[in-house]
């Protein structure tokens, strides 16, 4: 291999190195992310969280119209931290995990509110029930990591979570607060 070949190989490699980040895939960093929720049982706050979730993200603050997020949660990974309750969650009354193993959020639009705040509209599907939701989120960047966090209030009965006797909201409140913190890599610099 002569010097010219080496030089052109280096040139190609460096061009690739420059070009790649721009087209780099945006990725969710699961270890630094969390999705938790809080429900109330007869006034008693109970915290739960999902251990497994993933997202396909294509976001650019400068290109909101073409930005897109598709988020999936593995429902079988839901835990309330108490084995006697966790064993109930997969049942048909609650999540019916066998039939609906995943919850999904698909964005349809992004709106910048300024100061790193955004509103993401889209469809949230849990247990076969699809509802329009608006997710408020705040984005911050530190180094190569972008963090999107927020709280999405939902109504559990809109998704048939807790049927029959458990539909009684005096036992388990209808309001559920979903708190998320998603760490992402490859997001272009925020304005």
């Amino acid at each position, binding site marked *: 291999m002569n010097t010219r070949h080496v030089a052109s190989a280096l040139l190609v490699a460096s061009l690739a190195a420059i070009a790649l980040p721009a087209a780099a895939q945006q990725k969710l960093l699961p270890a630094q992310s969390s999705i938790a929720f809080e429900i109330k049982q*007869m*006034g008693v*706050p109970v915290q739960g969280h999902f251990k497994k979730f993933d997202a396909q993200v294509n976001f650019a603050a400068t290109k909101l119209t073409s930005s897109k997020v598709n988020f999936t949660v593995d429902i079988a990974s839901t835990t309330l931290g108490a084995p006697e309750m966790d064993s109930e969650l997969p049942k048909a009354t609650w999540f019916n995990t066998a039939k609906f193993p995943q919850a999904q959020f698909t964005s349809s639009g992004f709106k910048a509110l300024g100061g790193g705040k955004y509103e993401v509209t889209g469809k949230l599907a849990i247990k076969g029930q699809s509802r329009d939701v608006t997710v408020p989120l705040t984005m911050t960047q530190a180094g190569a990591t972008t963090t999107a966090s927020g709280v999405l209030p939902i109504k559990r009965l809109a998704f048939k979570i807790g049927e029959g006797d458990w539909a009684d909201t005096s036992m388990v409140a209808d309001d559920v607060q979903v708190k998320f913190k998603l760490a992402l890599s490859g997001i272009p610099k925020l304005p």
Partner: protein
Amino acid sequence: MTPSSSERTPQATRYNTVAMVLHWLLALVILAMFGIGIYMTDLPFSPQRLKLYNWHKWAGVTFLALTLLRLVWRMTHRPPALPVAVTRTMPGWQHRAYHATHHLMYLLFFAVPLVGWAYSSAAGFPVVWFGQIPLPDLLPVNKEVAELIKPLHKLLALALMALVGLHIAAAIKHQWVDRDGLLSRMLPGRG
């Protein structure tokens, strides 16, 4: 209570109204709580189970608060001394047992609900009194500690029930065996 018993001891000093109300009210609460406590732990996960657990906790905290009030009342309002007719015929061991039973019952009136509350805190279920008033956690959330405390709550409650049984047996003996009218001190009526 028979009319003859109160006639026999016309100047028998009774407990005052507050002491009587607290005695009989807490007697009802303690028996109800014991029954619910035994019953609820065997129930499958259901709204009924959740309801009974919360009622048990609310009643337990109410019991604790009223017991504190009762103790303060007792310390500021001297209870009637045992009638001479009773002390004269009472063997020394019975007198000692009478004092020991009452002291131990008071000790357990506090210990049983406090240990139950501590268990609920450690298990990650803060107590929200009547579903409205969040009470502080007595212990930080720790499942291992919770598992250690759980049998203690039951053991102490069983010990308390044994003492209550002894207390009732002694009252019955005084009323229908000794016929000394001791029970009338804790019964409303002509005084």
